[in-house]
């Protein structure tokens, strides 16, 4: 397969604004999950991983005038996209040759849920109606920096950003573009906090993925973008690659709208395909960043999928969701950035809050570990069984 280089990354989540803060939190096992501060909701009982800024503070940092129509998802997206573009030395004049693919599901729901009754009955806040949808959110994010060649939006729930990365890679392999910025953004909303609560999959304690006592997930929010680039283009521009996207897989569990199958069929197929695309063996994988939400169902299903694929030799594995909460649509790209950091700095991110092995489960990394890594898998699974897996590799010198 034609190598897909990653020449820039940007990230914002509960553990920090930008890569430097993020890396130090990961290395120092500092979680960003805590009591709810920014979202206006009655459900104060749930710990969450919020980005530690108000919308107004983000807008100010981005130089967006007061009163401009924005959404939290778009604002977080801009913070991460700005870092990724700068990291890859992409300036506004170059954007007309660069594609933009973002993943989100809530889009502008943070505003719609506040103003819904006005939309239906009144006239106030009608300027927010046109930014309700996912596509508008992506365009708002992209247009803050210039005119991209094309823009589109993946919406496969919690695997949206991972699928945006896959589409970008296919576009480069097809020769449709040399550079595509891919990723996702998602803020916490009352809509999905209540939705997840009605499904009884939120934990009132900090989440404990792959632990016997796990009892649900903590919601998180954030954004991350990766600059994917063809080898020729990176060479021509003289930019260095941080890592290589060497494989990826997408499969459907085709089991249930909100639950994963007991044998993890979709997850198994997605990881297997990622290995096949990369031409690698299971023994080549040094680390798996699991989807690991902390719900009894996901972690049992994902454990089965890993055992089916890797047998007795499941590589070191962890879920980083106890750091950030479950950042839903953005999790695929946020965790891909964590994996790139792990490859670059040679460490295994810790599965925080873990103490007791679950029945028939996989035991995660629970202690800080320095380790030279060459190939890592990064899983992102969504409602409806939209399962994707990315294979990220160290650049071969």
């Amino acid at each position, binding site marked *: 397969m034609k190598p897909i280089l990653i020449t820039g990354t940007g990230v914002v989540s509960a553990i920090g604004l930008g890569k430097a803060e993020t890396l130090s939190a990961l290395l120092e096992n500092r979680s960003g999950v805590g009591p709810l501060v920014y979202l206006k909701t*009655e459900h104060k009982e749930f710990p969450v991983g919020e980005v530690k800024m108000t919308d107004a503070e983000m807008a100010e940092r981005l130089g967006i005038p007061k009163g401009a129509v924005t959404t939290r998802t778009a604002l977080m997206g801009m913070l991460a996209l700005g870092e990724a573009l700068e990291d890859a030395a992409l300036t506004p004049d170059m954007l*007309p040759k660069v594609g*933009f693919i973002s993943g989100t*599901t809530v*889009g502008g729901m943070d505003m*719609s*849920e506040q103003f*819904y*009754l006005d*939309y239906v009955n009144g*006239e106030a806040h*009608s*300027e*927010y*109606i*046109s930014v*309700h*949808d*996912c*596509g508008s959110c992506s*365009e708002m994010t*992209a247009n803050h920096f210039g005119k*991209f060649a*094309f*823009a*589109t*939006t*993946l*919406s*496969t*729930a919690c695997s949206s950003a991972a*699928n945006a990365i896959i*589409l970008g890679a*296919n*576009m480069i*392999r*097809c020769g*449709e573009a040399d550079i595509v910025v891919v990723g996702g953004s998602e803020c916490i909303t*009352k*809509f*999905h906090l*209540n*939705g997840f*609560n*009605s*499904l009884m999959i939120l934990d009132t304690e900090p989440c404990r993925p792959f632990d016997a006592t796990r009892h649900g997930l903590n919601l998180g929010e954030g954004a991350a973008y990766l600059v994917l680039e063809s080898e020729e283009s990176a060479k021509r521009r003289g930019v260095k690659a941080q890592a290589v996207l060497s494989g990826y897989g*997408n*499969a*459907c*569990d*085709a*089991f*249930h*709208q*909100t639950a994963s199958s007991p044998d993890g069929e979709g997850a198994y197929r997605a990881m297997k395909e990622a290995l096949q695309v990369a031409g690698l063996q299971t023994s080549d994988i040094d680390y798996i960043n699991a989807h690991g939400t902390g719900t009894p169902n996901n972690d049992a299903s994902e454990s089965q999928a890993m055992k089916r694929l890797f047998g007795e030799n499941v590589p070191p594995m962890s879920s980083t969701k106890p750091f950030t909460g479950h950042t839903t649509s953005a999790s695929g790209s946020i965790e891909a950035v964590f994996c790139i950091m792990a490859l670059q700095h040679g460490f295994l991110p810790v599965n925080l809050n873990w103490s007791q092995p679950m029945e028939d489960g996989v035991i995660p990394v629970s202690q800080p570990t320095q380790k030279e890594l060459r190939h890592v898998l990064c899983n992102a699974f*969504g*409602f*409806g*069984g*939209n399962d994707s897996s990315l294979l990220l590799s160290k650049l071969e010198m």
Partner: protein
Amino acid sequence: MENKDLYVLSAKQVSIQQPLDESWMQDPITYAEPYVRSIDPSFKDYVSPIEARRMGKILKRALATSKEAIKASGLESVDAIVTGTGYGCIENTEFFLDALSNEGEQLLKPTYFMQSTHNTISSLVAIQTKNHGYNATYAHKGISFDSALQDAWMQFRLGKINSALVGGHDEMTPTFYKILRKGGVMGLDDEMCGEAAVSVVLGRQSEGALCRLTGFKMLHQPSMNSLMDSVTTMLQTVGKSLSDIDYVLTGISGNHQSDSDYLSECKTLFGGKTLLKFKHLFGESFTASGIGFYVAAQCLKAGFVPASLFVDQERITDKRPSCILLYNHSDGKNCSLTLLEA
């Protein structure tokens, strides 16, 4: 890279025209109202009554068009399911927002939430057809279907798949229609809005196919020059020039600004080509471009263009179409070009 021909094996719709057939080609239904809901087929052939009770309309329509399209394609199953939907399952979203706004945060039931995400459609089709293949959903305004088409088209070229179900689905409740007009999103001027569900199957075999898909390109806020370059490159790639195009299918809809942009852009891009429209029969929605794809494919198969589709009544001709270019400029920002050939 695979250069084998790619065929449109089948295309099915549920819309404000008669569902699951092409009677609109002979007897189009015309409406005086600016907004109408789809004419639904009986869903009992596609979903059991017990399951249907819990499903929103968008899901039932998606099952009907998907299952009919797969049946008509002659394939047992497809390698990929890719869906475009601008707003997703908006009826269930509305129910949940309504409860959240009126009843507060303590008594919410999961039913509506479970079927409110955009990817509910694509995954439901996968669950019902037991399909573990590639599955993705695009939600990007008026190019949602186009994005899904592009995804499938690239995977064919990369040799990753040999067949795909590509869908476009949007529903519009009365409340949502009102909100969209208020927000200036659609339904302005003389623009009629309509719900739309369309499913097409793409594959490698020519037997029984409606037409070939030979080119696709998507652009964001393009300049006239870059649009022109894209048209030229697309045609050159398949060894064609502008003179080989018989008709250009536009998204002229009754929105004054958008229509005048279409007319002037088409004049610059395509010279004196005969322009066609379809939104006056099917209505505007974020899935309209999917209906456009269906309309063009059916015209190529039928070997004629119904008189009702001509923008300029004086240009009506019975010339057999062999090459139709679809030009979608959506909201004036997102453009797509699709080339279909007999």
